[in-house]
């Protein structure tokens, strides 16, 4: 077994941030995705959308400058970039569903090689679940990137031929950032773009159910 150090939450967030071009409108989901904003250099102007009705979300403010009326979709107190705006939920999801966002970054439980995403429930139990804005974002953003651990804590693969959990949306994911690799979702399936240092393609494949392509 080769020497390799999987990316942690911060490392994954920073890796995603590298790939976001200036000028993009981006929504960041709950969890690791929320951390991405901290790693986009200040001189690169990216406009962050939050589904609770904000464009131009800025970083967490200093404690004495907190505004209790200004939270992001993860319910964290945030600031507003000059040029930011507030609007209602119907408008916020018009922006999402209407394909005006260049990108959303979502957490995931499972991603299938055809781009299916599962990130809101681990079983089909009726009447409970945490859909939030994920289904709208998954169908609405021009690019859907998923960031997650490459496997579950128990070592079960999350990159699958077919999702076993209930879907968030079919065929929506365009790229996956894991603790071990960056993979594009292409016509033929997962195409590996980047692997962390010290891990071979074969070793990555061994931790992945779906077939990987170079």
């Amino acid at each position, binding site marked *: 077994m080769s020497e390799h150090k999987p990316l942690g939450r911060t490392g994954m967030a920073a890796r995603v941030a590298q790939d976001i071009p200036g000028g993009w409108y981006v929504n960041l989901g709950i969890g690791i995705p929320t951390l991405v904003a901290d790693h986009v250099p200040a001189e690169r102007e990216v406009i962050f959308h939050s589904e609770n009705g904000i464009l131009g979300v800025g970083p967490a403010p200093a404690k004495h400058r907190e505004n*209790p*009326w*200004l939270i992001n979709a993860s319910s964290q107190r945030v600031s507003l970039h000059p040029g930011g705006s507030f609007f209602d*939920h119907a408008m*916020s999801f018009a922006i999402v569903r209407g394909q005006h966002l260049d990108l959303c970054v979502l957490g995931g439980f499972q991603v299938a090689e055809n781009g299916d995403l599962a990130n809101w429930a681990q079983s089909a139990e009726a009447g*409970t*679940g945490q859909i*939030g804005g*994920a289904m709208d974002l998954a169908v609405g953003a021009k690019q859907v990137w998923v960031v997650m651990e490459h496997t579950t804590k128990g070592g079960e693969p999350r990159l699958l031929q077919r999702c076993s959990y209930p879907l968030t949306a079919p065929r929506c994911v365009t790229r996956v950032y894991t603790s071990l690799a960056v993979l594009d979702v292409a016509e033929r399936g997962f195409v590996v773009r980047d692997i962390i240092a010290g891990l071979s393609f074969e070793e990555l494949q061994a931790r992945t159910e779906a077939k990987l392509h170079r």
Partner: protein
Amino acid sequence: MIDKFVRSMAEAMAGIKDGATVLVAGFGDVGAPNALIEGLIEQGATDLTLVVNSGGRNRVAGAEPSGLTRLVALGRVKKMISSFIRAQSIAGELVRAGKMEGVVIPQGTLAERMRAAGAGIPAFYTPTGAGTLVAEGKESRWYNGRECILEEALGGDVALVEAWTADRWGNLVFRDASRNFNPVVAMAGALTIVQTHHVCDLGQLPANEIVTPGIFVDRVLHVPAGDPRPVA
């Protein structure tokens, strides 16, 4: 003279019936009409259908449960429509025990269904939820190469709203991210009841800055409720 201000919580809550569908604005505690929910607990209506974005949030150790959670825990809600009902929340446990019906729907669909009710649009197609459990039992068809499902308007007998400032015509403005579901809920209620932090004379709200025109509003109660609770 048109005067939508009411002078007491009892007046604000008058006439809400058992079995009513109640739309509740807010995203977490920000923009949530918490005083009106307390009023509804007091008022006593039961067998409610509650429509609210996050109806089943986690318990926070040491914190007083929200009014919404207490309304649910009191058994006053027979059905909850929400984008977010955690299995481990009080609402989630009632759902899993078969004591309350839970319907989890996408947040954007929730907003658009209420907006549709307010706008006289009885149904619309959306790509959100197609190919998922949300689509079960719904009509679907393809537009521009994407599957879309038919969703119906979701109006309420009652809508509960929190505003920042209101005038006697019921014109409303909201503070920052507390706008969220408030304008949507306001337009979707047959009886729209508002709690407002501030009141002002008619004409003090600039005409270009009014977010919810008073035509959607029936009653306004002045409740200087203070800032939303810190996030747990």
